[in-house]
């Protein structure tokens, strides 16, 4: 679906019938003669640039667009906000980038060159275009680029302080999602420009998502991105450890990374010295990530027995640690309970990590250590048995900041649930508990969930909540649908899985 009409024309068609504003009509008329429009840019008041640009973009007046980018009178051009509803025509997007290119090709920067940042992110500056086309507002307030994290700003200032003012690069802000073998055409064009203009055009990418794509293609892209702009990285490929090691040097240069998610990295069944090297390489990268706050390790097959090895180079306190769908050993848990980086955790997740045959004393210690800060605890699908769970209760009762506790998919009995309820009564911030249907709600050997029994047991828990003065605490039972495995939630009434409902 391509943008054929201007913002306002679309808006008017959807609502009460009304003619377009004279501003829009005038802009359209001006653009009909592109040469004239381009000449007019010299005298155009700056408040007219945004509505004229919108019309040029919508009407695909590529020459005018090119000229307008060069003459843009504000420090920031939030092009992404214009593209958020649909993909722009390739030629329109290219025209905008070509305009930037012409600007950068100039040896001497003209005095009136204001453009510093081209923001391609879809969700930022959303008000910019509607405000400018609808009303006049004071020039200053809207024009600053999105406030950067303090660290980033400082780095950028430092980097630019050394350069002469004319050489400060133009920044293109974009969130990247790299997947499949072929790149989106607009992205390819952007990367081509970046490669061509080198130091003059910096691609700053705050959020990077990497899906399955050949490593050499990924590396080509990473070479033209300012790696220190990346704050949020998700790697969701099925990589062999060896492939990961080719990615690691790039990871090491993402000095401002705050959030890292690594998912589905495998190791061959028999360990080799090479593979041990790779693990050490990965762990060494953490030395280069002094701002890391959130770490998600999902489905990492080499983690078992190596948690110490992987996390030992973390030199900052984490806010979030989530280890999911992995196997871990008792020594791993012991390490975790002593790891210096977890003492200030707000969010701990171990879902899908089988703990049935492990001694959970270390988990108890870990919960105690984090009791002053822990807000969210996720122990779903851990196979925790009654006795193990009971041992955790005293440490849980000390978690004064806890708001959410989720532990579905564990074989817990009603008695232990009631005990948990009593232990958590005093936690004033605890508002949401997701608990597994207790063992007593399953009938017969086959383990079929009996909704009637669950209803009774749930009602009993609700009663206890009320009696203890916490009626508004939200205790919801969640169990997998026997048909499809999705979660069915139960609170007062079952919220049934769609596959139960008639078509």
């Amino acid at each position: 679906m391509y943008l054929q009409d201007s913002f306002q024309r679309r808006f008017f068609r959807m609502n009460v019938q009304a003619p377009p504003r004279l501003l829009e009509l005038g802009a359209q008329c001006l653009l009909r003669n592109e040469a004239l429009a381009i000449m007019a840019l010299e005298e155009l008041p700056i408040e007219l640039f945004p509505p004229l640009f919108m019309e040029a973009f919508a009407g695909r007046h590529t020459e005018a667009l090119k000229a307008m980018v060069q003459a843009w009178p504000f420090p920031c051009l939030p092009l992404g906000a214009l593209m958020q509803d649909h993909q722009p025509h390739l030629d329109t997007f290219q025209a905008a980038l070509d305009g930037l290119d012409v600007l950068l090709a100039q040896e001497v920067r003209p005095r009136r060159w204001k453009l510093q940042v081209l923001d391609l992110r879809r969700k930022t500056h959303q008000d910019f275009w509607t405000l400018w086309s609808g009303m006049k507002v004071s020039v200053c307030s809207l024009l600053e680029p999105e406030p950067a994290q303090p660290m980033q700003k400082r780095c950028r200032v430092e980097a630019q302080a050394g350069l002469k003012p004319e050489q400060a690069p133009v920044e293109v802000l974009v969130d990247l999602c790299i997947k499949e073998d072929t790149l989106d055409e607009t992205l390819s064009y952007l990367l081509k420009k970046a490669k061509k203009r080198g130091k003059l055009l910096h691609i700053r990418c705050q959020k990077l998502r990497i899906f399955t794509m050949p490593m050499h293609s990924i590396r080509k892209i990473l070479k033209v991105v300012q790696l220190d702009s990346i704050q949020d990285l998700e790697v969701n490929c099925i990589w062999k450890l060896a492939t990961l090691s080719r990615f690691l040097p790039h990871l090491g240069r993402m000095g401002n990374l705050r959030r890292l998610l690594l998912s589905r990295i495998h190791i061959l069944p028999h360990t080799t010295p090479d593979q041990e090297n790779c693990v050490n390489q990965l762990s060494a990268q953490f030395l280069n990530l002094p701002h890391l706050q959130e770490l998600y390790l999902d489905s990492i097959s080499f983690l078992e027995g190596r948690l110490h090895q992987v996390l030992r180079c973390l030199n900052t306190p984490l806010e979030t640690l989530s280890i999911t769908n992995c196997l871990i050993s008792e020594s791993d848990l012991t390490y975790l309970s002593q790891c210096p980086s977890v003492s200030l955790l707000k969010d701990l997740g171990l879902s899908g990590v089988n703990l049935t045959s492990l001694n959970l004393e270390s988990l108890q210690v870990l919960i105690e250590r984090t009791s002053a800060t822990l807000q969210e605890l996720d122990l779903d699908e851990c196979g925790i048995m009654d006795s193990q769970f009971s041992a955790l209760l005293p440490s849980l009762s000390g978690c004064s900041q806890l708001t959410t506790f989720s532990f579905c998919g564990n074989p817990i009995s009603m008695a232990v649930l009631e005990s948990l309820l009593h232990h958590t009564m005093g936690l004033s911030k605890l508002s949401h508990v997701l608990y597994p249907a207790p063992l007593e709600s399953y009938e017969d050997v086959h383990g079929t969930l009996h909704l009637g029994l669950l209803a009774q047991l749930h009602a009993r828990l609700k009663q206890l909540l009320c009696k203890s003065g916490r009626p508004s605490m939200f205790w919801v039972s969640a169990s997998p649908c026997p048909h499809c495995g999705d979660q069915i939630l139960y609170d007062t009434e079952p919220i049934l899985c769609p596959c139960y409902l008639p078509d």
Partner: protein
Amino acid sequence: GHPWCRGCGGEALIYVKLISSDGHEFIVKREHALTSETIKTMLSGPGHFAENKTNEVNFREIPSHVLSKVCMYFTYKIQYTNGSKEIPEFPIAPEIPLELLMAVNFLDC
């Protein structure tokens, strides 16, 4: 009293006079002129503008060939808003769009 107003002294005047930079006077219905947010503000503000008292507005920077087009737009806008008729194109001669845009920028319409 003014020949072009229904009644003076307390009654709302239904016409206003818009004067271009080159001295041409355009008499339009007040309701039409209110299409321009700027004119609306000028005419309804609490006595800040001299225009308020005489229902005349002087546009020292808008020439007549532009102001006439603006007045035509007022009519066009009122005629086709909330109507069920198909909205026709509003013709703008190719010589004037830039000046028109500058005027529209000021008038906010």
